[in-house]
Structure formats: C-alpha cells, structure tokens
C-alpha cells in the first residue's frame, strides 16, 4: 500500500513536471515581477530562481523589479491599481485581505485545485484562503520559538523546559545567576506581539486567539486577563532585559550574544545574525514555547511570504506558470536551503536543509502544532487594531500596573474598528 502510494505520487510528480514543461515551452510575451526581497541574500536567491525560469522559457521576456522591503508595503497600493506587474510578493492571511476585498488580487483557486499544489501545500492553504478561494501561493515560511544560549543553560544545569512551571523555575535560576532570561527590543512594537501570540495561544488556545484578533472575543474578557496575569509573572520576576522599549529587535541581539540574556523568542531569521556575531551552533539551540494551560493544543506562529497575481496583470498565463514553478518541490528545496533563504519549504515533497534549526522547526510545525498555525499578531489582526494593540502590549511590558487602562482602550478601539 505504502509503496503504491509512493509510486503514484512519483508518477504524479513526473506527470506534473512534464505537463509544466510542455506548456511552459509555449510562453511568450513579457512577464513583470515585483519583489520585496531587498536584503542581499534573499534577493540573490530570487534572481537565481527567476533566471532558472527564464532558461526554461527562453521566449519569455522577464523583467524583475526589486523594491525596498519597507517601501514596498506602501508602494504596493499604487502599483496594484495603476501599473500592475504580473507577479508580486506579499504576505498571507489578513495582510492580503484589503487587496482581495478591493478586487486587486487574482483568484488562483484553479492552481490549488491541482493536487500537486493542493495536497502538497495543504499546511499553508488556510493562510491563503479568503471566502473559500485561494488568492496566491506561498513560497517560504519560518518557525517562531525560543532560541537560547545552550552554553549558559549547561553552565547553570538547566534543560529545555516543557511546562510553564519549568520555564519559570529555569528563569529564576538564570536571574539568580545575575542574567536576564529573555532579550527583546520593543521599539517597533511587533516583538511584543510575538510574546502575546504565544502566551495567549498557550493560555487560551488557538481558536480563542483567532477570535480575539478577528474581533469576536473581547480584550476585557477573563481569558485575556489570565494571559496578561501569566505574562506579568515573568515581568515581575525581572525576566526581560531593562529598557527594551528603546531597542529594535536587532539592537536586542547583543544582550544574548554577550551572555547578559539567555534566550530570545523570535523567528528563525534571528539565527543568521546570531551566527554572524560569532555564536556557534553548539552555543545556540531552540525549543518550542512551553505548555501553559495543560490540555490546550499547541499552536505556532509561522509567518508565510507569498506570490500573487494582480487582477490587472497583463500576462496571467505566464504568471500562473511562474507560481507553479516557484512552489514545485525542487525549487522549494533549494530556495529555502541554508545557503539561500534559510527557511522552511512550503511543499511537503521538498526536503529540508540539514540545519538544526530548520529541522527542529519543520518537525515542530508538521507534528507538534495540532492547534493550528497562526501568521503573526500583526498579520492576523487588522492593521489598525494591530497597531493600537501592540502599543498597549509595549506599555504593559513597561508599566504592568496600567493594565486596566490599556484593556479599556483596546476594547474601545475594538468596537470602533470591527464594524
């Protein structure tokens, strides 16, 4: 049975590849691609991927524009309506909702109907679905979790915690040793959103968390208060570095590098700068955020980056081929390997690079996240609510006594924003 499944999967793959090849040969015209991958490494990866696609389609005239990642977030509004490319990068879930609702993204459910995509990309299908249709394809995603200094843990005789009690006991020992448990920089607010995501998902579960972020549960509810009470336990212990409101997430890295703080709740993108700063893989390690309320199914943050076809695109046929190409198993394997994006492939048929963080992340997301996969605080909540809320989270971290005021403010904002 198993072998039959395998052979049929292989046959399917070959069929899909040959079909892709056959139709790809006929692609002509221009293909305009807009990318927000402006950092040097991802940019090189994308350009390499596009040149491979070019080789397969010599008659296609591909024009690539790379826009600064931050500037892209405002420019996309203009170019989607005025001067649309054929393919554009963006983010999944609520972040794409304004463009879907304004009719600026093309419905690509037809691509997902193909089992080669629909089945192999099943883990991210939910994040690309709005109103029962799919509006783009993912090309990479990455895990969040606790990155910690293994050498400090070893020195203090600590092991990776799995429960909230163990987490706090570990933290107390770290504090007694004159260090801080966690580094964080909340100047740009979203890092505090990551902490809230995890504390709330572990305290109240994935479904409640999503209800809260989509406006169906109240910020003044007892569940949310319990989340903040848990958070406050850490704050009152002095678990976080001082003055975190002054630092960006990059500026908070040196605390961990110098050994003043033992751990960092972050996305996998934090590994590269930690390695660049001279920490070896023996010194850093990763664990899944601990269980808080026993019995609540674990859910993870795994932000997904995506490709979309604008409704006003000129060459949608070529754009669809490009999307198929980008999510195909081979391409997914190499663009996400350690030498390129260093993240997780979205295609289940791809292999994960032999990097201990990617392997642990892939394992965690595929087997130990039964509750669901969230995108991230500011991608799951509407932008306006995310902004107000993350400001409140930062204020709470600095002045936990203001909690009642903050929750009232968020409650008012919620009634105004979700109409």
């Amino acid at each position, binding site marked *: 049975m198993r072998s039959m499944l395998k052979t049929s999967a292989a046959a399917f793959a070959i069929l899909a590849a040959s079909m892709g090849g056959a139709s790809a040969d006929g692609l002509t015209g221009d293909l305009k691609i807009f990318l927000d991958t402006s950092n040097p490494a991802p940019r090189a990866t994308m350009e390499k991927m596009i040149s491979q696609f070019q080789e397969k389609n010599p008659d296609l005239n591909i024009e690539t524009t790379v826009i600064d990642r931050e500037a892209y977030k405002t420019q996309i509004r203009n170019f989607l309506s005025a001067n649309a490319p054929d393919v554009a990068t963006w983010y999944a879930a609520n972040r794409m909702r304004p463009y879907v609702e304004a009719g600026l993204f093309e419905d690509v459910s037809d691509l997902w109907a193909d089992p080669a995509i629909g089945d192999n990309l099943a883990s991210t299908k939910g994040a690309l679905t709005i109103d029962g249709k799919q509006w783009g394809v993912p090309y990479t995603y990455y895990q969040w979790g606790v990155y910690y200094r293994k050498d400090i843990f070893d020195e203090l005789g600590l092991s990776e915690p799995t429960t909230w009690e163990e987490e706090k006991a570990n933290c107390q020992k770290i504090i007694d040793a004159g260090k801080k448990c966690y580094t964080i920089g*909340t*100047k740009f607010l979203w890092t505090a959103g990551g902490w809230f995501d995890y504390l709330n998902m572990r305290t109240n579960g994935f479904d409640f968390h999503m209800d809260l972020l989509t406006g169906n549960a109240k910020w003044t509810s007892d569940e949310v208060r319990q989340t903040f009470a848990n958070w406050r336990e850490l704050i009152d212990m002095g678990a976080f570095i*001082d*003055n975190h*409101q002054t630092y960006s997430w990059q500026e908070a890295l040196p605390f961990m590098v110098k050994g003043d703080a033992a751990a960092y709740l972050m996305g996998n993108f934090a590994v590269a700068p930690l390695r660049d700063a001279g920490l070896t893989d023996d010194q850093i390690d990763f664990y899944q955020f601990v269980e808080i309320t026993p019995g609540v199914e674990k859910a993870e943050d795994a932000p997904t980056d995506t490709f979309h076809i604008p409704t006003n695109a000129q060459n949608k046929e070529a754009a669809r081929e490009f999307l198929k190409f980008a999510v195909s198993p081979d391409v997914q394997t190499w663009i996400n390997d350690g030498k390129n994006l260093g993240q997780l492939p979205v295609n289940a048929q791809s292999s994960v690079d032999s990097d201990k963080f990617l392997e642990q992340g892939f394992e965690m997301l595929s087997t130990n996240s039964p509750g669901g996969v969230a995108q991230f605080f500011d991608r799951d909540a509407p932008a*306006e609510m995310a902004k107000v809320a993350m*400001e409140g989270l930062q*204020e709470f971290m600095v002045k936990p006594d203001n909690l009642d005021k903050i929750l009232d403010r968020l409650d008012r904002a919620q009634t*105004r924003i979700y109409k």
Partner: protein
Amino acid sequence: MAQASVAETRQSSWWHRNQQQLTPWLFLAPGILFFLFYVIFPIFQSFNLSLFSWDGLGAAEFVGLNNYEELYYDEAFYTSLKNNLIWLVLYLAAIPAGLFIALFLNQTVTGIRLYKSLFFFPFVISQVVVGLVFTWFYDPTFGILNVVLGSVGLPPMNILGDENWVTIGIIVAGLWPQTAYCMILYLTGLNAVDPEQIEAGRLDGAKGWRMLWYIIVPQLRPATFIAFVVTIIGALRSFDLISVMTNGGPFGSSRVLSFYMFEVALSEYGFRMGYGASIAVVLFLIMLGFIAYFLWSMYKEERAR
C-alpha cells in the same frame, strides 16, 4: 493680406501698450502655477478628504464630520497636540542660544572661520544623522550620557524610553542643528550692526548686558524675526527626528501631529486617509495662525517705514 497685417499691428501694439503690466505676471506664472497646483489645491483636497472614510484602495465613503468627532475622543491626538506645544515652547531656546554663540564667535582671532564652520556643522548634516547620534548618546546600556551621569553620582536614565522625558530628549537633539541655524542668522545680522551706535552707546556709559539689550538686540530685529519664523515652523514640522529616534514611542508618547498623521495615513499600519487628512487640517489651522501673525507683523512693519 492687408487685413492680416492690420490685425498684426493691432496685436503687437496691444502687447506694446500692456508690456509693463504683463511682464511681471509672465515671470510669476510658472511659480504661481506650481504653487496653486502643489500647495493651494492639495490644501482644499485635504479639507475635502477629511470628510471621507477611505483606505486608499476602495471607494471613499462620505462620513461628514465623523473623523473630527473621533479626533475629539482620541487620546493619541491629545498626546500629539501636547507634544506639539512642548516643541513650540522649548524649541524657541534655539534663538537665545544662537544669539550667544553668534556673539561669542563674532570676533577676529586666528582660525575663527574654522570655529564658525564647526559650530555650523550640525545644521549641514542630515537630521537623520543627528537623530542617530543622539540615540546612541542616550542609549541606556552603551550610551555616554549614563556614563557622565554616573560619574557625578546620578542614577542612570533611559531618556528615550521614559514617556515623561522622551519629548524633551528629542527636542534637545533638535536644538543642536536649530541653534546653528539661528547662529548663522545672527552672525550675518551682527555684520550689519552700526559701529557708530555702539560708539555712541559706549560714550553714554552702556556696557555688558545693557549694551546688548538696548543697542545690539534692537538692531538685530530682522534677524530675530527670521529666526523666530524658521524656529516655529521647524518645531511644527518636527518629524524626522521622532521617526528616527523613537518611532513615536514608547507607547506613542513622543508623537506630534505631523508624525501621527503619517502613522494614521501612510505607515505600515495606517491607510486611513480621511482620518489622516483631518489631523492634517488641524495642523494646518495651527500653522495658519502663526503664519497669519507673521504676515500681519511684517505688513505692519512695512507700513511703519
């Protein structure tokens, strides 16, 4: 044929007659057109937009004065307004500071040109760089400020992380280039001070402060006026320093109106164009108050002459 030449002569003579009146307008035309298109027209557009709810993508929905009503209940708006007032008052310190540095530098010693340019230097570098330099200066862990405070026995401070100090901290950073600007204005002003009046004052026994206040400062009136105008406008436009140094934080306590407008309308989490426009309208009305005052006092001065 004959008719055409008659028309031609009539035309050229009309041009000839009105040349004197028309030429200035022709020269002004490009400027007026640009001013109308890029300044006046957007003002009315903002007024109009502030009555709508629009995310920049879909259709705009007319909401009347709702945006202003929301402003009225918006705590963040009052924080921004309060910070704008603090900016207006404290930023004026650049004027006396600039005057004293100018007086200090207004002497002839070797290398004075070098000293003058060094004092002027902060005005030449970008505001972003000024912001970064001061951010590092204030850094609670690695910054030099806490080293200095510690050496005189004071406890460390996190200026940019404390909602009561953050605005003052940013204004101090802003004063550095603004003082240089006022200094340059006063240095040129001091060149025009009449030495005969100083001589006369000296004969009458004026010295030190009295000399400064009754003889020098009145003659620097034009420079003071310009310094006042640029400082007020500078205070109301304070944006880049806030963006670089705190991004409006901690928890929004260092925002001013211009920054809040940007956040609401144009930042990553914004795109509420109508609400942003209503903040812009409020800011415009405040600025209009000052500009009207300046224009009026300029007009009065012209008439007095």
